[in-house]
């Protein structure tokens, strides 16, 4: 092997890399917040919601969990325009990530809700809380607390999965790597550096999520 590794020239492209990192972070920030909210709503429907709504949500969750993210992305970006819904690359990427994480997180959150003892619901009812109030004040937070580690790993998985949004020309970190690769033909360096950046992002994201967990669930600290 007579290949000479050189990483120095990559500095020339740092604006692209920084922009790519920023977009990847933005994608996961929007995806995580909106995705988890969607997951909470879906989990509520499947665990406690009206019966007529359950099959729809179940269908959505099963469909998303059993198809590749890449195809969901293509369907949203290339397919939906024929229904008259044209989205920009970034919007399509955002939507795909929210829809994807929504399905996965709803299953995780549902497990948390189902692990809530029945007595908690009864206690809520005996305090004259409506079912919604009971869910909001008694069930939701301890459920999220129970499954927070699993939810965090899922968010990290979705962040790593976001690498494919470069395929619809959303300018994320992978897009930057491809850009550099096509300009310089030094594929190996470009991809090694961006892989390392993803690794760092994944570690930081995991840390950040566990810190968020500590902030939302202060009871944990008392234990």
């Amino acid at each position, binding site marked *: *092997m007579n*290949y000479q590794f050189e990483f120095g020239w990559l500095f020339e492209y740092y604006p692209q890399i920084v922009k790519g990192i920023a977009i990847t972070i933005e994608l996961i920030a929007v995806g995580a917040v909106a995705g988890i909210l969607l997951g909470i709503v879906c989990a509520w429907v499947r665990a406690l919601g009206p019966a007529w709504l359950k099959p729809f949500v179940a269908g959505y969750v*099963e*469909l998303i*969990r*059993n*198809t*590749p*993210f*890449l*195809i*969901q992305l*293509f*369907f949203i970006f*290339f*397919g*939906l*325009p*024929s*229904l008259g819904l044209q989205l920009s690359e970034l919007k399509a990427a955002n939507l795909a990530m929210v829809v994807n994480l929504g399905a996965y997180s709803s299953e995780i959150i549902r497990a948390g809700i189902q692990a809530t003892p029945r007595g908690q619901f009864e206690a809520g009812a005996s305090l004259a809380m409506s079912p919604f109030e009971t869910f909001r004040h008694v069930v939701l937070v301890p459920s999220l607390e129970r499954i927070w580690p699993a939810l965090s790993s899922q968010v*990290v998985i979705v962040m*790593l*999965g*976001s*690498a*494919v949004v470069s*395929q619809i020309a959303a300018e994320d970190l*992978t897009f930057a*790597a491809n850009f550099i*690769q096509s300009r310089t033909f030094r*594929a*190996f360096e470009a*991809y*090694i550096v*961006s*892989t390392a950046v*993803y*690794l760092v992002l*994944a*570690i930081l994201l995991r840390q950040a999520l566990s810190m968020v967990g500590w902030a939302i669930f202060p009871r944990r600290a008392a234990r």
Partner: protein
Amino acid sequence: MIEFTVWDILRNLLLATRWTIVLSLVSFVGGGMVGLVLLFSRISRRKWSRALAKSYIELFQGTPLLMQLFIAFFGLGLFGIDVPAWLAAGLALILWSAAFLGEIWRGCVEAVAKGQWEASASLGMGRLQQMRYVILPQALRIAVPPTVGFSVQVIKGTALTSIIGFVELSKAGTVVTNATFQPFTVYGLVALIYFALCWPLSKSSQILERKLNVAHRNH
């Protein structure tokens, strides 16, 4: 302009589906073998062996599969090997799924009660005998549902190999779209085919989990 019927589209997609299936099988079986090595090195008594396996798993679980595919595709080329897409795809998917399977199985081995290790040690069994006769048979039972569940991730993972140019279901979807200009129909069908492959596996994983858990509680 040629008109394409839905049947034309579906037939071509189904023809490409076999490569998705072949690649999934290769990745799952190969990943299982490498994963077994990882499992043993992860629960070994030697510290360096545990550390090595752990950093392997961290590396492959902490980076995007797409990047691993790119590095396999372009990286191997540096060694003067002419890398066809299927080789890079198979290699990257095997190494990637090994990291996950190794970690899943470690969880299963650790789920076996500690007393079982102690009991078998007190019978004078060596480490290999303990594994062979006491731990693995019990861990295997716990491992079946998550392993079947992970096969769904492998099938979905193969979709990414279309990006480095391996012609399987996703790539066929793109090609057919370019020919027919019907992205809505084509990607809808592609999604349904993936669903038809994955859903039975997810479902049987859930059913197995329920069954084996029930059996477990009766002990």
